[in-house]
């Protein structure tokens, strides 16, 4: 860019130098005033993601900015609940960011309508991002119509955390976590201790995507799916949830609390087991002052098919970006840092070509092995452009059943009807 300004004409050159001097002075003033190091001619990109300060995105952005390669990224954190609505509002008013981290079941909504940039060509030329390096599940969630509209950012699934000290205290074998739904309820009954403010289990049945994320694996283990949400196994799953809530084996606030807050009660010793994902490993290894372990999600009965949720976000570039090349460069940089993701932030890269090195923290490493095993059974939600409506029907069913306003069967029948209307 600078070369364009350098002309043979002497006068212009002086003017050019002067101009740069002024810009330089302004930039200096900018540095001293705001502490920004952006140069005036830098390409500016904006990245939106839900990652907070101990999670990857803000660090990736900061490290990328330190490269000083003529691209500066501005980072904005958005709340989990607001990601899609903010993105949509911004896109429809022409103020979309260049890059966004979007929850994988919602990716199809945007790519099916052309809101995300088709990256197929750029990926085929890239030496960093190669489709064959990714797990098939996460990769499928960025696909639409056989084209790639994003890059998996990370992946995760859910499993059962349990407090081994509490297992010992209640006479349970700390090396035998519950294997089936019946065992889970039985153990939760033994572990629940209202006098000590301890619930048997912590999970989330919140009326947002988190509720669906936690329930769908149970329905799938029982032979159901989102297209077949009122199958016998799914009804049984919801009945088990209802038992857990009715007998106060989990806090009634599970209905309005997300997974992060719910697992917080496990870390503080107010719940003996918790269903959550690998994103908890880091915080737990710092906060939990007890011996804990991770087990695969319990199944309906011994030998039944396993299942789990497939979560986490994808990177995508909005079709409205003015700097597609630069934005893709940023994604390439993010992907090049995938190998450090688990060590630094406890998140799992969606890559099959990266073998995650041991962190040296015994509990964390043991937990990781279980999560990698559980990932084999992880199933994506959708992909379907109308996933939010499908998910809402499932959330409504969960909440209606758990508050006792309808039976699990009726609630799921109603959900099935709503989903049928969406699927057409």
């Amino acid at each position, binding site marked *: 860019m600078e070369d364009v300004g350098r002309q043979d004409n002497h006068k212009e050159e002086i003017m050019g130098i002067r101009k740069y001097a002024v810009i330089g002075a302004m930039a200096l003033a900018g540095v001293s005033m705001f502490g920004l190091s952006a140069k005036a001619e830098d390409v500016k990109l904006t990245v939106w993601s839900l990652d907070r300060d101990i999670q990857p995105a803000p660090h990736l952005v900061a490290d990328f900015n330190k490269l000083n390669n003529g691209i500066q990224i501005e980072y904005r954190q958005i709340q989990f609940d607001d990601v899609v609505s903010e993105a*949509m509002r911004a896109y429809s008013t022409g103020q979309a960011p260049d890059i966004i981290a979007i929850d994988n079941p919602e990716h199809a909504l945007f790519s099916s309508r052309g809101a995300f940039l088709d990256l197929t060509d750029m990926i085929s030329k890239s030496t960093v991002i190669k489709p064959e390096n990714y797990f098939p599940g996460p990769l499928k969630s960025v696909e639409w119509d056989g084209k790639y509209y994003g890059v998996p950012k990370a992946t995760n699934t859910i499993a059962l955390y349990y407090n081994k000290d509490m297992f010992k205290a209640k006479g349970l074998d700390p090396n035998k976590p519950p294997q089936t739904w019946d065992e889970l309820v039985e153990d939760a009954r033994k572990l629940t201790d209202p006098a000590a403010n301890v619930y048997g289990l912590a999970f989330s049945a919140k*009326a947002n995507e988190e509720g669906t994320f936690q329930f769908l694996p149970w329905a799938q283990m029982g032979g159901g799916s989102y297209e077949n949400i009122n199958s016998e196994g799914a009804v049984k799953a919801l009945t088990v949830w209802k038992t857990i809530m009715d007998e106060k084996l989990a806090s009634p606030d599970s209905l309005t609390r997300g997974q992060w807050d719910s697992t917080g009660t496990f870390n503080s010793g107010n719940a003996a087991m918790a269903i959550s994902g690998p994103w908890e490993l880091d915080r737990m290894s710092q906060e939990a002052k007890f011996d804990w372990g991770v087990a695969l999600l319990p199944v309906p009965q011994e030998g039944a098919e396993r299942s789990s949720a497939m979560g986490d976000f994808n990177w995508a570039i909005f079709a409205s970006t003015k700097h597609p090349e630069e934005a893709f460069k940023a994604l390439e940089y993010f992907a090049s840092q995938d190998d450090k993701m688990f060590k630094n932030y406890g998140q799992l890269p969606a890559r099959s070509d990266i073998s995650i090195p041991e962190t040296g923290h015994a509990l964390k490493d043991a937990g990781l092995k279980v999560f990698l095993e559980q990932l084999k059974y992880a199933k994506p939600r959708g992909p379907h452009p109308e996933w939010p*409506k499908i998910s809402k029907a499932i959330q409504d069913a969960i909440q209606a059943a758990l508050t006792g306003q309808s039976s699990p069967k009726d609630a799921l029948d109603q959900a099935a009807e709503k989903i049928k209307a969406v699927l057409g």
Partner: protein
Amino acid sequence: MKRLLSSIRDGNGFDIVLVAFPLGFLFLMAGLPLLYNILMSFQEVDMFSLGTFLRPFVGFKNYQDLFAQPETWPILGNTAIFVIGSIAGQFLIGFGLALFFWVNFPGASWLRGLFLVSWVMPGLVVGAIWNWILSGDFGVLNFMLRETGIISGNIFWRSDPNYSLYAVIIANVWLGTAFNMILLSVGLASIPGDLYEAAELDGANAWQRFWTITLPMMRSTIGAIISLGLIFTLQQFDLFAAITSGGPNNSSNVTQYWAWDLSFRQYDFAKGATISVIMIVFVMFASVVYVRSTRHEVRG
């Protein structure tokens, strides 16, 4: 041309300019969005047709669909309970406090000013704080109620469908009381003192003075406060977002939160607009009451 200019400088033209300016502003800032909202409620809208005006018209289909949904009437009922409960609580406590500070003990005006702190706080912050206070297992409110022996087991304010709406009402009463108190204090201060002196000479007791002087003299203030209260409670959104998210199972859902939920969580913008239109009718009613009661005030 000259006549036009002089008319603008001094005459009818000047009046017209004075009226046209705020009218134009109102039309741009409030009228257009309102009309756009009404337009949307008769159209089929999805997230990617948001930027255009010409979308397929569907007549009253959005309204019919809305009232065919099983949750519609309960949510309208919740809204009524929320509005009435919040206004009653804010007004009664606010009036009580205003009368209390009216006694004018040392430091009264100072303390009254401090009460405004709650009104100044952003709704989301208030919501987050009440979220902790109302938390079921470790909430301060449950702790206090338990220690004083009022309850034996924890109440799950946010997650029990029988309490969730009242949890938000409690927070909203706390948030709005100070505003009510200040406006009522102003009203009280404007009542001439000689009226009370005369009444006292005639042998009226405190109760009679309150009923025959204070309340009638406060009529326009009270009318204004209650209609403002209706508008403010129908606007209250942050507390729902922070405390219950309208749950569990819509037990604490109200129209204003539902409109947002439909528009920005389920991307059903047309239905969100439809609910807003229904709300506009109620807010219009409150505005008319407000304008009428303040007009009464000006005439004295």
